[in-house]
């Protein structure tokens, strides 16, 4: 019984730790914290593994654990970010520090978490709009709006960085 659980756990760790790390990284934008989040996610996953009946739901289940853990660990920080940063302010400020090779990465980092998270869940993790809506506890329409706005903001941000580079040349 324990061996089966261990084997199931190991396959989850080997199968999902990479993508969970990337999701964690884009939530907290700090690689050591991201690794801590992944470690803690799997600790909690182990404790609750007996409750996972459907193996097909494992991926979504792990993402939810990580998301909750991030909210628990960085709740104050997250509120500060969301409370002070609006998407329009970010795009209009022109303060993005975009280096040539990391232009897009910087632009993604500059997005407020409420826009960055659904975008990464879709682009990186392959979740559908309805799955993202369930995970974030918002409507599917709200997810679509955020995704649209996130993409438009990234186009504007990366376009501005390119313009700046051309002016420098």
């Amino acid at each position: 019984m324990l061996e089966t659980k261990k084997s199931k756990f190991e396959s989850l760790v080997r199968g999902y730790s990479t993508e969970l790390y990337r999701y964690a990284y884009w939530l907290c934008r700090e690689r050591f914290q991201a690794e801590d989040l992944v470690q803690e996610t799997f600790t909690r996953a182990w404790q609750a593994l007996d409750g996972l009946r459907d193996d097909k739901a494992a991926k979504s289940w792990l993402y939810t654990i990580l998301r909750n853990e991030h909210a628990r660990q960085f709740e104050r920080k997250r509120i500060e970010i969301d409370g002070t940063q609006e998407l329009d302010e970010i795009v209009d400020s022109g303060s993005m520090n975009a280096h040539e090779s990391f232009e897009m990465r910087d632009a993604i980092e500059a997005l407020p978490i409420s826009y960055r998270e659904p975008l990464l869940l879709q682009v990186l993790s392959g979740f559908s709009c309805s799955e993202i809506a369930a995970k974030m506890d918002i409507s599917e329409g709200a997810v679509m709006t955020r995704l649209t706005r996130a993409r438009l903001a990234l186009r504007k941000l990366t376009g501005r960085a390119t313009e700046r580079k051309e002016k420098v040349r």
Partner: protein
Amino acid sequence: MMTCFEFRRTILANPRERTRNQDQHMAQCAKCAALAREVEDFDARIHDAAMVPVPEALADRVLLRHKVREPARFGGSRFGVWALAASLVIALGAAIQLYRADSGDQERVATAAAVGEGHAAVAAISYVLDHEPQLLKANVSGDPAVMKSALTRLGLNLPSQGTTVRYLGKCPVPGGDGEHLVLQTPFGQVTLILVPEQSLGPRVVVAYRDRTAAVSPVRSGSYIVVTDSLKNVKQIEKMLM
């Protein structure tokens, strides 16, 4: 029939899942078709940028941490209680032996069997031998400020001359994480694991798999040194104090 406005709204929200309505619209509207291609290319750029490098051997570290923590965190069975009691008796025995040995010139070196496989010294040696080569290949570096802060809290000193930090990161230790340093020193390659604010028990030196590890309590925490001999463990400790 879908309008251009509707098409643009849906394609920007979800460029990956194209519907039949969208395909029909694209067939009739060149501008929207061009936009769809542009959004697809842009999404590929977002995807590439989002693929940040993942720390080497991450899955192995997660599994190792669970292995290390397992007796304490997951034990709850009758066997677990007996195993814990047996470990305590062994640890106490080892501690008494080491205390006696301390009074002599040469420190007693315990075996892995004497201290148990879950002991921090044994786990550290396993980690060094099984994971460190991959970590060194990954050529990643942690935050030097975190390392300095951990050294200061433990009252240790890393000489700037003659010592090079080859790797800086985190590693699992019983009950949490440690600051993991790989140093190139005049005495060879040495692993130093700093564990601030946490006691790993009394001082123990263990020889296992051709390595020697010393776990020592210090001011507000513990450290672990892993190298190839007791002599070099002592040299490193002298250098750090």
